């Protein structure tokens, strides 16, 4: 039952994001469009390139969808609305999302196309840039909660949300989450303008449908992680807990789309330089500030 509700919420959120994405791209709000586009993909030819690494080519979209759903499975929508409340939940989110890199490199390597290849290796550089900014802010969150259990992390924010307690961590995590989901200012591996689609380029038909769904699901999962770690999860007045979780998750996801819509794509060299020269010292500073706050303020 819980599994069905969480998966439905995930699918519904992905649908809503697809509607909003279409709205921003075309200027028309058409709620049925994602459904029709998905069906159209099923009817289209799904071409396998001439000399592929078949295993990598087939596995990449599936793996991307699997890790996005696995990440969501350990994030709570309400105190009892969570698929698996693991003892190492916050770490599991990291572990699952680390496989996004594997999936993207497989998608780049598999079809034996030059653009996909460059896109895949580029994402490895992107991982080196964003990865520390995902894990270090989560450490600070776990320090406050004294636990890696995700429901306990939300519980620790009952009085004060983490976005107020550690705003620096929130900003870093938010930016890194967008880079992880390779959404628009950080869509280096799939850059339409310079790589002709990059890792997406060789996927057509039903495989492309799975890949698109996986990418939208990944955004929802990361928005949910932001909600759980920083925006107080299910806490909020009047409405039921799960409603608050969904509202916050969708708000974060839509804000990610909006930010991506208005910012130009960042260059790989600049992304890496900013993340290491500025991001990592700030993330370390965040850990020290939170550490002092925990000791000084009871």
């Amino acid at each position: 039952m819980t599994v069905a509700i969480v998966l439905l919420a995930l699918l519904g959120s992905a649908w809503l994001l697809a509607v909003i994405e279409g709205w921003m791209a075309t200027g028309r709000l058409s709620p049925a469009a994602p459904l029709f586009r998905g069906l159209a993909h099923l009817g289209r030819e799904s071409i396998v390139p001439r000399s592929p690494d078949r295993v990598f080519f087939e596995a990449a979209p599936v793996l991307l969808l699997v890790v996005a759903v696995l990440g969501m499975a350990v994030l709570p929508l309400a105190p009892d609305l969570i698929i698996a409340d693991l003892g190492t939940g916050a770490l599991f989110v990291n572990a699952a999302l680390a496989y996004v890199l594997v999936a993207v490199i497989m998608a780049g390597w598999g079809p034996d196309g030059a653009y996909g290849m460059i896109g895949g290796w580029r994402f490895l550089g992107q991982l080196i840039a964003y990865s520390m900014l995902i894990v270090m802010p989560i450490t600070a969150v776990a320090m406050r909660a004294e636990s890696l259990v995700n429901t306990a992390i939300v519980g620790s924010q009952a009085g004060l949300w983490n976005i107020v307690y550690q705003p620096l961590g929130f900003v870093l995590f938010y930016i890194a989450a967008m880079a992880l989901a390779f959404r628009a200012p950080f869509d280096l591996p799939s850059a339409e303008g310079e790589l002709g689609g990059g890792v997406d380029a060789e996927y057509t038909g039903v495989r492309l449908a799975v890949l698109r769904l996986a990418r939208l699901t990944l955004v929802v999962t990361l928005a949910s992680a932001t909600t759980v770690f920083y925006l107080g999860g299910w806490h909020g007045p009047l409405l039921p807990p799960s409603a608050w979780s969904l509202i916050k998750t969708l708000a974060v996801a839509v804000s990610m789309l909006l930010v991506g819509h208005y910012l130009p794509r960042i260059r790989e060299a600049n992304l890496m330089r900013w993340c290491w020269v500025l991001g990592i010292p700030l993330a370390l500073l965040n850990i020290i500030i939170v550490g002092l706050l925990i000791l000084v303020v009871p």
Partner: protein
Amino acid sequence: MSFLELYSLLLALVVGIVATILGLYGFVRVMGSARGEPGKDVPASSGVLSRDPVWGRYHARYYGYALLFLAFDMEMAFMYPWAVVYKEVGLVALYDMGVFLAILFLGLLYGWSQGALRRQ
């Protein structure tokens, strides 16, 4: 639920997703296939046939970062258990990790001074 049950639940979830996607692929295959034509399956390369195969050596120009990344990634393995017991242990934990992080941070500064934080 015990942790074994939780992990079996996650495994079942993975199997379920993969089975759903395979079912979708099967459905598409049943609907019919397109006619195979020469030149249809060439990877996108702006109208020019790329030299086959493209699996060659890619110059990872971020290798300087990658080496530093290894050090920091290892450090994170220690930080998670530390973060959980931090409040319990108190000031000593802050000192211990502070010294460790300071050494790592000096490494980052040294790498920076030697030009590691640059796309080569």
